[in-house]
């Protein structure tokens, strides 16, 4: 029993150190990307709002192309995560391969780290969207004075609805699977061209923004994510076996 507790403690310490290593190696890149995304979206939003590209909030947000900015940022965020982790494996593989933590353990630490980072990116985008709605209300109170403007914005604007699907369970499930699959695939990437990660990213970029209740594309998206996740777990299991 004592042995098990000791081993568990050792593994937990090892996992924490890998987590710290990942954070130390990627934090500046991720923060810079997040700042560029936030500033870029804010600038595009103001240009759109003050440049008269629509009177309604929906038109302003749609014409400011924040969905494109977000999806581009997501791509760069993923490439920063996967690239950092590949560099660690490539340049410091001699150390990584000598750790008492198994390859499977290292993979899960990386995957959880990536998933956490992606959740932060989504949360940041939601926060930016909420700020935009507030800013629009302050700028044009006469155009959008409803007390439910925030709630309505997340229903009327497709991108915002896909980001925070409110009562649409199908999109919540899709988003959860997307984040899990992207995080796992970025963690699995070690060398060469990250084909599966690219495929998954293009699926996300192509299908993320869709109409309320777009069941078929969401289901396909979930299917792709499940396939990617299962293949990762299978490869990992095979490798460690």
């Amino acid at each position, binding site marked *: 029993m004592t042995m098990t507790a000791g081993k568990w403690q*050792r593994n937990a*310490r*090892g996992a*924490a*150190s890998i987590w*710290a*290593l990942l954070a*130390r*190696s990627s934090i500046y890149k991720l923060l810079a990307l997040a700042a560029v995304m936030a500033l870029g979206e804010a600038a595009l939003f103001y240009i759109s709002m003050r440049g008269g590209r629509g009177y309604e909030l929906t038109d302003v947000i749609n014409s400011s192309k924040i969905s494109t900015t977000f999806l581009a940022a997501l791509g760069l965020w993923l490439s920063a995560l996967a690239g950092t982790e590949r560099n*660690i494996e490539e*340049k*410091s*593989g*001699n*150390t990584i*391969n*000598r*750790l*008492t*933590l*198994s390859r499977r353990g290292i993979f899960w630490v990386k995957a959880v780290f990536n998933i956490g980072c992606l959740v932060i990116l989504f949360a940041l985008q939601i926060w930016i969207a909420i700020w935009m709605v507030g800013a629009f209300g302050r700028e044009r109170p006469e155009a959008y004075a409803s007390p439910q403007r925030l709630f309505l914005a997340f229903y009327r604007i497709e991108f915002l609805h896909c980001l925070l699907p409110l009562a649409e369970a199908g999109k919540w499930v899709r988003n959860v699977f997307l984040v899990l699959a992207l995080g796992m695939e970025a963690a699995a990437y070690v060398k060469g061209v990250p084909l599966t990660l690219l495929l998954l990213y293009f699926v996300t970029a192509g299908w993320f923004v869709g109409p309320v209740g777009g069941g078929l594309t969401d289901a396909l998206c979930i299917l792709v994510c499940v396939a990617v996740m299962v293949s990762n777990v299978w490869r990992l299991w095979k490798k460690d076996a």
Partner: protein
Amino acid sequence: MLEIKSLKKYYRTPLGGVEALRGVDLKIGQGEIIGLFGENGAGKTTLLKSILGFLPYEGEVLLDGEKIRRSNISRLSFATCEHSFFPNLTPEAHREFYKMHFGTFRDKRYEALMNFFELPKRKALKNYSTGQKNQFEVIMALCQGADYILMDEPFVGNDIFNREDFYKVLLGILEPEETILLSTHLLEEVDKFVGRAVLLRQGRVIGDVTMVELEEQNKTLMDYVKEVYGYRPDRVERALEELTGGEDE
């Protein structure tokens, strides 16, 4: 005891394949300091990486009778000219990382060696010079608290004084249970440091001798290496003769 039994390694290449190790047998007792010598492509790096389990191989590598696994791999440390550290991290971050993974980390030794080599502790390693990187690489291998310290050309890029210092410091700090397997080309520099020399050629051990045996035979390590490799001292002379003779005609 580290036992290597009939170790074979075959690399597949587009043009067929290369037999990098052709049945290496070696026994390394705890506390030994062994020099591993051989020309480029003799199999030194492959041997060290196979011992560590970085490469798949045929044969057996046993550490005190057990296969090397996650549970006992921390008894081996590795310093290589390819470097193993995390370039974005500082030495202090490495120390924390190692301490979390290797309970046997030698903190006092780390402090002493970092101070001796005057290495900055809060500078990211990617900003170190090549010589400093090598020094740090060896320091971490020595401080991990491993029983078997494997080194693969660790001093490539360091000046002679620096290397001399390292050998002296190494001899001064090593505990009796610490074993060194040092792969290098710098024969004449390490002959006072190593206690045993193992010679590899084309993936085979072709010589294995202790320095005491050499002393008894009144031979230097260089003499032994030349003898084993069949080095012909008149080789250069004859080649020069051929070259200059052609011009005279």
